């Protein structure tokens, strides 16, 4: 058991080192994300003028949603894993994994975890700088169960994020260029994942339908648990559905990998 984990631990450590090299890129991206937060604040402040709540939540609760969302994007969001996997397939770098006792999914997932650890910790710096301006608009619930359910939801959301990126990366077995598909999917994921606006502001039937799609669980779900937008019963039920989506995506990833390898031609080293 432990020797098996040891090789992925090494992959994690290598991922940590290589991502620390790009710390300034992450920091720059984090800084520009603060501009996005400014846009969100200006837009929603203007929308709240003349009313205390929108969709049952006040301005502080909505701003808290977007701040936690931003943190979550840097802690669990897939950045460019799809392109990295695509590049490794196109350049033939995956050939080495076909000859070694290394599971490619686990190898890439270990690197993904390392990358998100670095980017997640780095986003805390611009957020700490912005905290004096933000603290009046932060309103986090203090129920302990939210942490107990939110953390596993966050981990499963990371798995869904990575699995979807992995699927798109594997499309390189069939298509030379995947960028268009990725950005198209990003639009759907952003809307149905609650990254453009809180999903609960959608008409009720759309919100209920979204709860059966994987996108709901890749970002909105953990953020909604942490920020008090969903209750305990819905959170427990959601965890079950989220687990189901993780299992389904893992099976689908394996299917794509085995079918893709049949089309793959390894040339040279």
């Amino acid at each position, binding site marked *: 058991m432990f020797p098996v984990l040891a090789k992925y631990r090494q992959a994690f450590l290598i991922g940590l080192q290589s991502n620390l090299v790009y710390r300034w*890129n992450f920091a*720059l*991206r984090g800084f*520009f994300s603060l*501009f*996005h937060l*400014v*846009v969100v604040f*200006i*837009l929603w*402040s*203007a*929308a*709240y*003028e*003349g*009313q205390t709540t*929108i*969709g049952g939540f006040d301005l502080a609760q909505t701003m808290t949603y977007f701040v936690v969302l931003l943190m979550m994007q840097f802690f669990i969001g897939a950045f460019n894993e799809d392109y990295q996997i695509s590049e490794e397939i196109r350049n033939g770098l995956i050939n080495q994994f076909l000859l070694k006792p290394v599971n490619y999914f686990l190898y890439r997932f270990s690197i993904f975890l390392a990358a998100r650890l670095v980017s997640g910790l780095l986003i805390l710096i611009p957020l700490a700088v912005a905290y004096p301006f933000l603290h009046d608009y932060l309103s986090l619930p203090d129920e302990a169960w939210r942490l107990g359910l939110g953390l596993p939801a966050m981990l499963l959301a990371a798995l869904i994020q990575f699995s979807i990126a992995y699927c798109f990366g594997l499309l390189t077995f069939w298509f030379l*260029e995947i960028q*268009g*598909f990725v*950005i*198209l999917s990003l*639009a*759907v994921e*952003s*809307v149905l994942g609650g990254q*453009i*606006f809180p999903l609960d*502001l*959608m*008409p009720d039937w759309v919100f209920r339908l979204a709860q059966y799609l994987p996108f709901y669980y890749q970002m909105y779900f953990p953020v909604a648990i942490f920020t008090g937008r969903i209750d305990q019963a819905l959170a427990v039920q959601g965890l079950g559905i989220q687990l189901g989506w993780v299992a389904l995506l893992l099976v689908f990833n394996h299917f794509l990998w085995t079918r893709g390898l049949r089309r793959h031609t390894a040339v040279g080293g």
Partner: protein
Amino acid sequence: MLHHLQIWLASARYSVTRTLMFRFDFFLWATVELVWMGVNLLLISVIYGHTDSIAGWSKYEMMLLVGTAMLIQRLLFGFFWSSLFDTARNIRSGHFDFFLAQPGNVMFMTTTRKLDLDSLVNTFVAAGVVIYAAVQLGLQPGPGDILLYLLMIGCGLLIHYSALVLTISLAFWITNAQGLEGSYFTLFEFSRLPRQAFKGAANVIFVWALPAVIVSNIPAHTLLHGFEPRYALWLFGATVAWFALACTVFNRGLRRYSSASS
């Protein structure tokens, strides 16, 4: 002038031929942009499902503003984005030498080389959004108003172009500022907000210091409320100032360029 127009037409012909060779890519990217425009409109629709006004702007006024911002963005992407993005990369890699040997103004040659037809196709969709919003608002602009609006869109395009030239010119000084031009997307988000929503420091930075807000707000305001000389002067003045600054900084940077080692 005519000479540069002939060069631009030759580049445009090349871009069209290239697009026809990669038809699937064209349809895919046109769809990608269309969907993202839909996302922006959806955000407006969702917020107005819960409120009647954002900073005094009604739903269709806001839609007209967002449509105007999208129109400028599509034109920028269609005419300049790829070339500008390549320029920064070429400066870093040394491939910029190729443009120095070309028979025309360097800034013109390097920033107008490629057309993205998928973005240009979507300008019609953005224009459709503006027209739809105008019809819903019962606006009946005369030919003069429409001409002025289009002129202001041209100014907005030139301001964005100038700001992007300034951003990529940084590559002459900072060779490892890779990806900075990609972050320019963030500034577009401010263009979709009504000017009245900006208060305090945000008003000073994004309305007065940076041109992010006025490029879309002044044309939209003109279409909604008619010609106001002070706003028109503000926009035209900003266009001249930003374009002059972009030309100066680009040419200064050009003097520093020393091929691959730049």
